[in-house]
């Protein structure tokens, strides 16, 4: 009964989405304020219904209702409660439901936080969001209904894919979707502006927090995904340039570009058309990512259902939404005019370069991701595009970006002097040169050019924005106490400093971990020891252990450093009882400076066990940096100018 209720709620939500897509939009054409205002109630109703459907599916998971096909395929009576709740988004149908739920959530947030926007504009924004929602709800109902019954009901479920039974993956998809779908709001704002044929002076200010919020979630989602791959896939890698990873990375790059160009549009009233185009692009790439993941056009590490009908539908929807958006842009963009002027050396120019590099990087990744298809279509002479291609193309584009990330914050709008820049960047320059050469050499005895460049730019990128923040702090302190100034530093500026410093931290992490990671693959018998990368590993043997829904062979390795025991690692090889698939559960000892990572291989015919050992310096800095970036986004969102404006409007 409850699954039927869920299904019914979805159908109703789909109808409301349809109304939300057309009624307010029609109202704006006809000048009918009642129709325009209906958008809010329709959006709220739709949000409630989708939430209801989502809860119904969750209930079916918790109560083990194996008469629902999707539950039978993705759950099991032995599955722990936490994974039953997260199992809702463990497969294709449930992922779509989560996507719709997240979109409704964003839409409700727009309804709640945009009361003061002009009615016409608001109605158009909500109409566009309703249209996107309609597309996904109809897609779900037509091709991937999560509430389909299984008759007769299964006695037992087939269990959740063991790969997905990991805390990292529990929160990875919701974060990622919050990011992906959040760009739908920016998209809707852009379409609404083009629809009206004019870019309101405050358009950039309205759009900015939405983009920052979506970007923050996407940053967390990508970081979590990488962290999960590192922990769960068992071969010590953290980024694979897999099509699905690329699908999330491309909107992130464009979203980053959008954040920067929005700053220019808001502050200097220029780059307007470009910003609108970026807002369209960011969501288009999110949709493209959905298409790539869901259609199975490209084979990837992420095994998802592969159904041609779904591919055709999403492609059609993609064509409609993005194509429609771009045509509207082509027809209307000439009406939008920029007014701000700037000199060759100015913050505007630096941000323009930032955008150019980010966009080229996105394009390069898009090309690499779609290359198998392009070859197929055009019959080109072939070249393979594995990680070597991406590293070769991506790295040279990132180095200038890192360089700019320190110069931008200390530059001035409109016009800045080279001598002034040099003076402000003296300290970062000295720090980068000193630390960049000394640390790799002292800690690792290395003078490889890439490590030197990575370290220098990492330090540069952390210290440059700090100089800008310090200047602000000094200016404020002249009038008041140090503590007061510190607390009242502009949050958006502290946020930007955090985000740029996070990028620097990631650069340091990548430079050190890529250059100095050591790995060893060997066969060990009980009592064997091996010295490697300044650590000694003693193999204590393997024992059987039982988990809730798996059995495991658990290895035991004692790790010593300088003769002192530091940790006992227990990597596992798990066999999940239902899907009978072996899973490697690596054991990782993380510190700020290095990870010691052990994975258990297979029992050797001649006795002993295959063991893989890694020592990975600085690897935690990658995710630390990503967290710092996301935190920067959060700080920027909490900036007083957003709160102040709301308060002032109320009075």
């Amino acid at each position, binding site marked *: 009964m409850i699954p039927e209720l869920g299904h019914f709620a979805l159908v109703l939500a789909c109808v409301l989405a349809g109304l939300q897509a057309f009624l307010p939009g029609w109202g704006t054409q006809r000048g009918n304020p009642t129709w325009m205002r209906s958008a809010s109630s329709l959006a709220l109703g739709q949000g409630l219904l989708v939430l209801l459907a989502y809860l119904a599916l969750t209930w079916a998971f918790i109560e083990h209702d194996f008469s629902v096909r999707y539950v039978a395929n993705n759950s099991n009576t032995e599955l722990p409660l936490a994974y039953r709740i997260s199992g809702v988004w463990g497969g294709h149908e449930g992922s779509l439901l989560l996507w719709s739920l997240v979109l409704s959530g964003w839409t409700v947030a727009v309804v709640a936080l945009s009361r003061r926007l002009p009615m016409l504009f608001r109605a158009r924004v909500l109409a566009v969001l309703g249209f996107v929602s309609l597309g996904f709800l109809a897609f779900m109902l037509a091709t991937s209904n999560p509430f389909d019954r299984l008759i007769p009901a299964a006695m037992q479920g087939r269990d959740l894919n063991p790969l997905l039974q990991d805390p990292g993956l529990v929160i990875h998809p919701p974060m990622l979707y919050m990011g992906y779908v959040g760009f739908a709001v920016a998209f809707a704002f852009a379409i609404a502006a083009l629809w009206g044929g004019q870019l309101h002076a405050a358009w950039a200010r309205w759009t900015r927090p939405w983009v920052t919020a979506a970007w923050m979630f996407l940053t967390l989602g990508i970081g979590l995904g990488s962290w999960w791959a590192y922990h769960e896939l068992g071969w010590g890698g953290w980024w694979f340039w897999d099509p699905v990873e690329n699908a999330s990375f491309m909107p992130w790059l464009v979203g980053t570009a959008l954040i920067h160009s929005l700053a220019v549009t808001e502050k200097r009233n220029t780059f307007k058309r470009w910003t609108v185009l970026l807002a369209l692009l960011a969501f288009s790439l999110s949709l493209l990512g959905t*298409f790539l993941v869901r259609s199975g056009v490209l*084979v990837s590490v992420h095994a998802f259902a592969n159904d041609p009908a779904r591919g055709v539908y999403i492609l059609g929807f993609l064509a409609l939404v*993005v194509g429609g958006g*771009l045509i509207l842009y082509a027809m209307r963009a000439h009406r939008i005019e920029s007014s701000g002027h700037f000199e060759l050396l100015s913050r505007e120019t630096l941000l323009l370069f930032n955008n150019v590099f980010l966009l080229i990087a996105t394009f390069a990744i898009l090309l690499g991701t779609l290359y198998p298809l392009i070859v197929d279509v055009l019959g080109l002479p072939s070249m393979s595009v*594995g990680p070597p291609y991406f590293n070769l193309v991506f790295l040279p584009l990132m180095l200038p970006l890192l360089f700019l990330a320190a110069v931008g914050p200390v530059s001035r709008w409109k016009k800045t002097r080279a001598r002034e820049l040099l003076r402000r960047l003296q300290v970062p320059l000295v720090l980068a040169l000193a630390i960049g050469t000394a640390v790799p050499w002292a800690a690792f005895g290395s003078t490889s050019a890439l490590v030197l460049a990575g370290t220098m730019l990492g330090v540069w990128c952390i210290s440059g924005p700090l100089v800008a923040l310090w200047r602000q702090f000094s200016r404020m302190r002249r009038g008041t106490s140090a503590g007061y100034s510190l607390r009242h530093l502009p949050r958006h500026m502290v946020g930007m400093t955090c985000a740029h410093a996070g990028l620097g931290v990631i650069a340091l992490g990548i430079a050190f971990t890529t250059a100095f990671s050591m790995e060893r693959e060997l066969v060990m018998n009980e009592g064997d020891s091996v010295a490697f990368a300044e650590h000694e590993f003693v193999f204590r043997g393997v024992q059987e252990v039982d988990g809730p829904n798996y059995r495991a062979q658990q290895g035991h390795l004692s790790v010593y450093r300088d003769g002192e025991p530091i940790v006992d690692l227990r990597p596992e090889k798990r066999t999940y009882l239902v899907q009978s698939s*072996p899973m490697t559960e690596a054991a990782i000892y993380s510190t700020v400076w290095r990870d010691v990572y052990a994975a258990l291989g297979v029992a050797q015919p001649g006795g002993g066990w*295959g063991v893989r050992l890694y020592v990975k310096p600085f690897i935690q800095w990658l995710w630390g940096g990503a967290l710092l970036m996301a935190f920067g986004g959060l700080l920027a969102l909490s900036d007083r100018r957003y709160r102040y404006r709301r308060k002032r409007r109320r009075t």
Partner: protein
Amino acid sequence: MIRGWLAVAVFAGLVAMLAFGLTRDPSRVSSPLIGLPVPAFQAERLASADEHFDSTALRGEWSLLNVWASWCTTCLEEHELLMRLSQQLALYGINHRDTRDEARNWLQVYGNPYRASAFDEYGEVGIELGVYKVPETFLLDPDGVIRYKHVGALDEEAYQEQILARIREGRP
């Protein structure tokens, strides 16, 4: 607004390509691995989780390494040819992203052309080999060096002109 229409045109091309991609399956793409020794990998055997499939075993004679899966319909197209080839050549399989039961069942129903298959459930070996479309077939010389890669169903023509020709050439 030339720039806007340009974006529309580029996007239309992209959609056309993606639509085409939905209708197509295999392709022929050479690989940077050609001329290099086959990447070292170890995996369970499909037949039994307790036995290994080790890439170092792929030495001493010319051999074909075929990436396949029970869910892959194109694999059936080339299956008959592979059955024939198994009489003349050392043929090894990599069972890509499959379940053990279904893969074994597939071999039982259609026949097993492979001396042994590695069970690559999560596509880890596939990543090492740069696999992106199943089936793919690698030709290895007696030193274990990859000499040719075929993407998609292998056919008689490709076998004669690409594979057999290379083996004849390589043989003194």
